[in-house]
């Protein structure tokens, strides 16, 4: 109470470590930084290109899972449309270069702004509804984008069912485009981005925005009766996680050099959900680990056409049996989400 910071249920243990003896604290930070740095470099010497590619895919899925998990954990909202922003980022980037004649960096910026406008408008419509309706509406919005890409009138832009080959000439944000296709360099980039985004979301979760979001999740009406605007924080959270999804989408297209309607599909969204559930939604590490795990598991079982079936099984199993996920064993999912039934 004396230090005047807003504490939340995750805060207490963290505060103790931070106020602990200074040498130990800096030691932990240094060790963490070395570990994070090593993660970007060491695998590129140890693993084959194939494993690095799988790993990079896993990191991108982990980024998506991070965005979905953050919204679940902080706001109690389940988004089933992560793929539309992920795939949409790739499409807009490609269209910006090939049809609007933009440089790669400009195309990236324009695509980013268009997505920002889209998710802000969509969010303004759907974050007002209850969590169940939100889930239904994100699914519907995702399908809308899938249909839009396949429209006959947009075929010249989107390539219809065939998708688009994305040729990137020159540099993107100062990085030569050739590097993105290199498995080792891309792994380092994806790792760095995943770590930075993870840290950023972790920080947001501990900020006042996180505290307000969790309180709204728990009792929206009481928040309004306490003078809070409950719409803007949720909209902000929704836009924020979609920007993360867009970053993952940009990384994907830069690496793959190709966008297809599959990248927008419902199965990408459900895979993301599974990755988040495997890793546990209550931290930044879990979802990224979940993404990696999913990627390698998909390689193992996907060849037999079982990925989607196992995705379905995984959703059921993780909700029913392991509601806290594999990594995030901190507490039960329902408690974290404040999804408790009234009167029970």
């Amino acid at each position: 109470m004396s230090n005047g910071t807003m504490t939340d249920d995750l805060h207490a243990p963290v505060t103790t470590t931070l106020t602990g003896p200074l040498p130990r604290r800096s030691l932990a930070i240094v060790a963490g930084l070395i570990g994070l740095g090593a993660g970007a470099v060491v695998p590129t010497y140890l693993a084959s290109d194939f494993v690095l590619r799988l790993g990079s895919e896993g990191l991108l899925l982990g980024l998506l899972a991070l965005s979905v998990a953050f919204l679940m954990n902080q706001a109690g909202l389940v988004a089933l449309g992560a793929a539309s922003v992920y795939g949409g980022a790739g499409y807009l980037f490609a269209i910006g270069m090939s049809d609007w004649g933009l440089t790669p960096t400009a195309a990236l910026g324009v695509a980013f702004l268009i997505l920002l406008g889209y998710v802000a408008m969509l969010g303004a419509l759907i974050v007002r509804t209850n969590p169940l309706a939100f889930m239904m509406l994100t699914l519907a919005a995702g399908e809308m984008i899938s249909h839009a890409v396949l429209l006959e009138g947009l075929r010249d832009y989107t390539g219809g069912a065939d998708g688009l080959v994305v040729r990137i000439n020159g540099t993107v944000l100062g990085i030569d485009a050739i590097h993105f296709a290199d498995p080792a360099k891309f792994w380092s980039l994806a790792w760095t981005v995943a770590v930075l985004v993870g840290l950023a979301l972790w920080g947001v979760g501990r900020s006042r925005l996180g505290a307000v979001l969790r309180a709204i999740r728990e009792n929206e009406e009481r928040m309004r009766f306490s003078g809070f605007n409950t719409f803007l924080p949720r909209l902000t959270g929704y836009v924020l996680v979609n920007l993360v999804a867009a970053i993952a989408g940009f990384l994907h297209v830069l690496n793959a050099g190709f966008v297809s309607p599959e990248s927008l599909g419902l199965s990408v969204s459900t895979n993301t959900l599974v990755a988040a559930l495997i890793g546990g939604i209550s931290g930044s590490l879990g979802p990224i680990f979940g993404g990696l795990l999913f990627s390698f598991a998909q390689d193992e079982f996907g060849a037999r056409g079982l990925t989607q079936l196992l995705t379905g099984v995984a959703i059921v199993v993780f909700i029913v049996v392991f509601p806290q996920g594999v990594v995030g064993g901190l507490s039960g999912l329902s408690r974290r989400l404040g999804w408790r039934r009234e009167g029970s």
Partner: protein
Amino acid sequence: MIALLIANSLALASLLIMLSSGLALIYGLRDVINFGHGAIYMLGAYLGYTIATVGGFWLALLLVPIMLALLGIAFEYLALRPLQRRSHIEVALVTLGLGIIVGQIIIYLYGGEARSVDAPKILSGSVTILHLSYPVYRLFLIVMGLGSCALLALWLRATPSGLYVRAVSQDPSVARMMGINADRLSLLVTSLSTAFAGIAGVLAGPYLSVDPGMDVVMIVNCLIIVVIGGTGSIGGAIVAALLFGFVQVAGSVFLPNLAALVPYILLMVVLLIAPGGIGRGRVLS
């Protein structure tokens, strides 16, 4: 032209009513949105296809709803009841997972290509009414749709169980005080809703195609309808289904380039004007 448009939208709306009213009923009673409803419809369609090739369309129309009603009972006992104390979102996620499983098993068994079902002889061909030629099968669909609407209304208005369903849907706490046994009602409503999804699946065979993507298309349509209708409002869902059918058909006639997006535009417009939907269900937020 207008008559044709209305008839076509009624035919489509008939299927949508059978599916979305079932969804709205379960929501009203249990606060659960069954994301697997599309997969049950798809199962109905594929079972209908198999039974129709062996024993004919009428047998399929009789057997499939019975089989799916049994599936509904299993769904109630094995999923909804054990998960009663879990949050609505968790239950919704479980139904999403179950739906994916059912859909994938169907694709595994039947393969990826689309199947077609022929309408029975008596329903094939066209009739001429007031100088307009119209396919008999679509008239049959309209009759089935309006018939199930009438039955639903009769059940809700005139029977004790229907009255209970309405009472619970409007205010669960009051209904609990009245001593209504929600479990028994829920068993009835769940099996009815899966049976109707089965009928819709069989009926969709000769009208739309039977293909691997039909579950997702239909669940998304139904979710849009349920949201437009005001989640949990059965009357709202019926009106929304009619509206949806009309907009979809009119869209494909007047805006063929954008037809696929028209339902979503409708959804956005409704959300903008009336975030709670058009019906008087329980309020959303």
